[in-house]
């Protein structure tokens, strides 16, 4: 009964989407307030119907309703509850339902918090959201119905792939989708602006918070995914240039460019046409990601089950959305009025350079990701494009980007004094050179590592210098500095945190790629192996049952200079339902490095193979990503961006609170 209700709710959602995609848009074109007023209730009804469908599927998972095919294929009655719930989106049909649910959440968000948007703009934005919803709801209903039934129901399910039975599944996909789908709002705003024929500073101020929110989620989603891959796959790596990683990274690059060009539109009324294009391309790349993951065209750890019909459907959606919006762009963009002028050396100029580098970087990633498809289509056989390609193309393009990131925020709008700014960055330059030379001195072979480390220091110190200049640190009395520091807008802190965060991430990348070491040994209980400065003493393996698996759990004592500093427990698990073994790594993390141990297959006579990695600075990756997310959140909480905040009522309630 419940699955039928869910299915019914999903059909209703499609009908609501048809209304949402038509009436408000027609109303906006005819300037008919009654028709435009349908936008808000339609967006809310969309959220309620899809929400019900999602709850119905979740319910089927929680009670292990094996009359539902999707539950049979991806769940098992013995699976822990958390993975039953997270398993809802651990498969193609369920994750698509999550996709449309998040789309509806954002649509309802615009309906609820967009009260101060001009009515026509809001109607159009919600209408465009409706179009996207029509595409994906029909995709779900006609090719990937999550509520399909089986008769007779099997006694139990086939269980979820054990690699996915991890807490990472609970957070990584929803976060990533919030990011992907969140860019649909920027896209809808861009299309609405093209229909409207007007882009101004106010438009940019409305788009920015939504773009920023999506960017925060995507940043967090990518970082969580990277961390998950790091500890789950057991290879000690955190990024593999896997096609599916790339397709989440491309919208991030474009979205970052969009975030910065929207600032120029807001502050200086320039770069409007470019910003619209970026909004379209960012969401286009998100759709491309959806297409690649669900078409099975590229080999990947993430590939869902392959079905040509589905691939074709998403390809058609992608073609219509990107082709249609680019056509609209070509027709309408020339009519948009160009805005403020600026000299090449100015903050605008630096942001343009940022945009160009990010867009080119995204282009090289796109080329590397899709190249195998082109080669195959033209009969060139199967190829794969690996990490060396990206390291030789994408990475060099990012060096100048990091370099200008420290300079840009110090430049004035319109026209800036580059020599003066560089003079103020003397400290950053000296420290960067010192660290670079020091790193080179310590290890001659790693010249690239030394270079990148120097750039990271340059960016980090440059960001600090910018903040210090703004609060007049060391130039004004401390009390003055304190007042200034408190008075700085949160958006300024947001920028500082995000930029410094990236510097920390870059340092983490350098450390874990250049100075990583590995050791492997076949050990009997009591024997030891060395890993850099560490010694690992193997104490043996004991078998123990887990919730829905059988586990061989090793005990490894970690020693540094003969002193015991910790105990690690890598595991090998066997999941009987799917008949698959997995390894669970054990990681000892400090601020500066990770010691990472994997238990491999035993040799039988009490000897086991241990594989261990020493990964310097890896924790900085997560730390830096967290700083970037925090920066985004700070910026989002800036009152300037809280366009929905009715200031007068706020002042009134504060007054009321004081008198009470």
């Amino acid at each position, binding site marked *: 009964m419940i699955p039928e209700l869910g299915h019914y709710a999903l059909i209703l959602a499609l009908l609501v989407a048809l209304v949402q995609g038509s009436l408000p848009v027609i109303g906006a074109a005819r300037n008919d307030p009654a028709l435009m007023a349908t936008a808000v209730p339609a967006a809310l009804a969309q959220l309620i119907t899809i929400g019900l469908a999602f709850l119905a599927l979740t319910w089927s998972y929680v009670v292990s309703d094996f009359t539902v095919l999707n539950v049979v294929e991806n769940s098992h009655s013995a699976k822990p509850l958390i993975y039953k719930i997270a398993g809802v989106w651990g498969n193609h049909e369920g994750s698509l339902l999550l996709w449309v649910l998040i789309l509806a959440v954002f649509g309802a968000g615009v309906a609820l918090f967009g009260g101060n948007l001009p009515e026509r703009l809001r109607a159009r934005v919600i209408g465009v959201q409706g179009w996207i919803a029509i595409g994906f709801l029909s995709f779900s209903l006609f090719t990937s119905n999550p509520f399909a039934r089986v008769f007779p129901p099997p006694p139990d399910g086939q269980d979820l*792939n054990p*690699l996915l039975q991890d807490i990472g599944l609970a957070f990584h996909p929803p976060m990533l989708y919030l990011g992907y789908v969140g860019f649909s709002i920027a896209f809808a705003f861009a299309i609405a602006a093209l229909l409207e024929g007007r882009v101004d500073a106010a438009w940019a101020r409305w788009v920015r918070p939504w773009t920023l929110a999506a960017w925060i989620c995507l940043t967090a989603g990518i970082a969580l995914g990277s961390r998950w891959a790091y500890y789950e*796959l*057991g*290879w000690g790596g955190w990024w593999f240039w896997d096609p599916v990683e790339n397709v989440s990274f491309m919208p991030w690059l474009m979205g970052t460019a969009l975030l910065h060009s929207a600032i120029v539109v807001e502050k200086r009324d320039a770069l409007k046409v470019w910003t619209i294009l970026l909004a379209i391309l960012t969401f286009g790349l998100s759709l491309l990601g959806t297409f690649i993951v669900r078409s*099975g065209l590229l*080999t990947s*750890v993430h*590939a869902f*089950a*392959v*079905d040509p019909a589905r691939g074709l459907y998403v390809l058609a959606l992608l073609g219509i959305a990107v082709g249609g919006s680019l056509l609209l762009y070509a027709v309408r963009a020339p009519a948009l009025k*160009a805005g403020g*002028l*600026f*000299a*090449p050396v100015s903050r605008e100029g630096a942001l*343009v*350079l940022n945009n*160009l*580098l990010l*867009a*080119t*970087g995204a*282009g*090289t990633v796109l*080329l*590397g990701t899709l*190249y195998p498809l082109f080669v195959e289509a033209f009969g060139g*056989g*199967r*190829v*794969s*494009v*690996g990490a*060396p*390609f*990206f390291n*030789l*193309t994408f990475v*060099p*393009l990012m060096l100048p980007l990091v370099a200008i990131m420290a300079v840009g925020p110090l430049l004035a709008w319109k026209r800036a004094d580059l020599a003066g700014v560089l003079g103020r960055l003397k400290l950053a330059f000296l420290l960067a050179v010192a660290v670079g030379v020091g790193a080179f001195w310590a290890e001659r072979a790693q010249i690239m590592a030394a270079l990148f480390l120097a750039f990271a220091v340059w960016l980090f110190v440059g960001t600090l210098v910018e903040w210090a200049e703004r609060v007049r640190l060391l130039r004004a009395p401390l009390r003055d500095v304190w007042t200034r520091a408190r008075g700085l807008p949160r958006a300024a802190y947001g920028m500082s945190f995000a930029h410094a965060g990236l510097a920390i991430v870059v340092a983490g990348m350098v450390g874990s790629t250049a100075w990583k070491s590995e050791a*492997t040994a*076949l050990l009997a209980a009591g024997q030891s192996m060395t890993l850099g400065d560490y010694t690992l003493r193997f104490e043996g393996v004991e078998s123990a049952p887990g919730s829905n698996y059988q586990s061989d759990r090793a005990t490894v004592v970690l020693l540094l200079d003969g002193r015991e500093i910790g105990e690690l427990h890598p595991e090998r698990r066997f999941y009987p339902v*799917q*008949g*698959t*073994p*997995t*390894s669970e790594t054990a990681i000892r993390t400090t601020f500066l490095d990770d010691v990472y141990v*994997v238990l*491999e*297959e035993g040799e039988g006579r009490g000897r086991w*193979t241990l*594989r261990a990695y020493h990964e310097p600075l890896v924790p900085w990756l997560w730390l830096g990503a967290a700083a970037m997310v925090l920066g985004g959140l700070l910026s989002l909480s800036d009152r300037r961006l809280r366009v929905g905040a009715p200031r007068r009522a706020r002042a009134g309630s504060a007054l009321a609170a004081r008198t009470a």
Partner: protein
Amino acid sequence: MTRKRRRLLMVGAGLACVAVATGLALSAFDDGLVFFYSPSDLAANRPAPDRLVRIGGLVEDGSVVRGTGREVAFVVTDLAATVPVRYDGSLPDLFREGQGVVVEGRYGTDGTFQAVEVLAKHDETYMPPEVAESLQRAGVWKPGRDGKAAQ
């Protein structure tokens, strides 16, 4: 600076970026591309011995021989041709006889494939598309529902 000159400058900067990226990409294609061979391809068309390539197929039943430490030798087959593989490294959890596998490495002049990496397969029933295709061409594997191997 006039609007026209500014636009020219921006277009110029954009073109410069694209030119640099194209140059980097072209030079990276020389050694960043890894071609895929099935065992039959390998017999027909041998890659240069120092060239990194991928091969894929099934691990032949009864062919896995473990040496001292982590050394292992096995045979990859598409049921039409076979390639002996040598490897010294970590095998993925799901590596076993009769299962699909993708191996990256170099094909030596002695006819042995020296593996650099045996690629992880993350699902019991998931067949890497390259392997599925080469097996299909050899006429031994039929795609089942959802492209999963029919057991």
